């Protein structure tokens, strides 16, 4: 990423617009981009979703397979979340093992899903201590124009909501939906100068100093947060991020059903 430098002209342009509360693509500071979802698009997956957030596009697939539980939680299913920033998605992404950016992304999405109890893992036991359902969520960035966090969260959440436990394939009873209890939604803001804007695109992300992601559950409670970036946010900024996460989370839950 270090090679990607945004021109001074573009930077000035974005900053100038922000002074007037405007953004390059016509949005206000608290507007998020159009969300498009194609759910169930991958038959080889047990759950899948392809999500566009503006021009950022991510595909997530869920595979559910029988496996051995962890020793300290013999009755509980296992969730694993991975993200790949494949070079298809952006000229700055490289092949190879996940970068620290990809790892942070996967872990933040994972925390939102895990901590919200979105998946009732207690219902994923096949035989106590012996066998549980293991749920692998794999996300691939296909096109990157900023705000991977929220796009990845959406793709993973939609794929999970759509997922079927393939019990029949393994002779473990009837197929049934993955037990989903809520819809965790993450809302990411970045700080540019003294402004906080929602759902940044690539250019905005490049000139931002700090990033704040807040994930809420259906009740508007907080389930996961992650401050990123080399800058700081004030406590007032934080407060605004929390307010917006609750409000926008509600809106998005309506959109994705």
């Amino acid at each position, binding site marked *: 990423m270090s090679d990607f430098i945004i021109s001074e002209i573009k930077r000035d342009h974005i900053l100038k617009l922000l002074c007037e509360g405007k953004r390059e693509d016509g949005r206000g500071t608290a507007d998020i981009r159009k969300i498009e979802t194609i759910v169930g698009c991958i038959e080889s997956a047990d759950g899948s979703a392809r999500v566009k957030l503006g021009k950022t596009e991510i595909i997530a697939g869920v595979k559910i397979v029988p496996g051995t539980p962890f020793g300290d939680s013999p009755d509980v299913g296992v969730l694993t979340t991975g993200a790949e920033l494949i*070079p298809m998605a*952006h000229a700055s992404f490289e092949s190879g093992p996940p970068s620290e950016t990809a790892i942070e992304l996967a872990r933040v999405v994972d925390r939102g899903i895990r901590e919200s109890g979105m998946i009732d893992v207690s219902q994923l036991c096949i035989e106590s201590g012996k066998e549980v359902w293991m749920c692998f969520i794999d996300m691939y960035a296909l096109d990157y124009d900023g705000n991977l966090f929220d796009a990845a969260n959406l793709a993973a959440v939609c794929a999970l909501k759509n997922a079927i436990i393939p019990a029949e394939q393994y002779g473990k009873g009837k197929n049934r939906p993955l037990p989903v209890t809520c819809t965790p939604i993450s809302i990411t803001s970045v700080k540019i100068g003294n402004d906080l804007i929602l759902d940044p695109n690539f250019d905005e992300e490049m000139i931002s100093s700090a990033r704040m992601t807040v994930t809420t559950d259906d009740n508007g409670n907080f389930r996961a947060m992650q401050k990123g970036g080399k800058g700081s946010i004030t406590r007032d900024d934080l407060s605004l991020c929390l307010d917006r996460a609750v409000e926008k989370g509600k809106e998005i839950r309506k959109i994705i059903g």
Partner: protein
Amino acid sequence: MSGHTDMVLVNDEGLRIDGRTAEEKRPIKIEAGVLSNADGSAYLEIGKNKVLAAVYGPRECHPRHLQDPTKAIIQCKYNMEAFSVSDRKRPGPDRRSIEISKIIAEALEKVVLTELFPRASIDVYIEILQANAGTRCAGLTAASVALADAGIPMRDIIPAIAAGKADDHVLLDLNKEEDNFGQADVPLAIVPSTDEIVLLQMDGNMTREEFDHAIDLAYKACHEVYDVQKEALKKRYTSMKEEVDSDE
């Protein structure tokens, strides 16, 4: 190629389990220009295969020691999404992916005018979103369209398709069941304008006669795929033109 013969893959009427005749390929669909960041891209479905291809370049070649002062190099990464197959595939390249990436890059070398871009790299990324036999051909077919979409000068576009053998019948474009329980698979890619072969593999068991028949089927189907490729690119140029026109 297990060659199990207790499974009926071609019925008495000569029809295959998905209803096709021996010489029929699966439905194919190609769309060019589907991604915004890549210099060129294409989405392809053939049967239950779903494939994305993207091209970046010509651009600076990394790592440097791979640069060729006389021409661009083509670097290809064929990658299967973890959820694209029945059993979850561990992320990262395996030996199969590395081999396929190599032979696809070599096939593309024949048609790209690499000599126009010394020291550069042309990077081709193929992502298999859903796999159902024939992904290397699907990937190469899509990559060719993505290269053209990227505006990279080419002698021709490469179509690819496999023929094979199952239940003792020579069949075009094996699906997953035919591949798993069949007797032979022969992926082929050609340069349509000259009928030269740029990719060819075979595994299984075939007599000379069967093999020649398979190659005949595959050649013919390559030309059909070629038409779909050209159609996709035409559509892409038309829609780009419309965009430009409407902007004016």
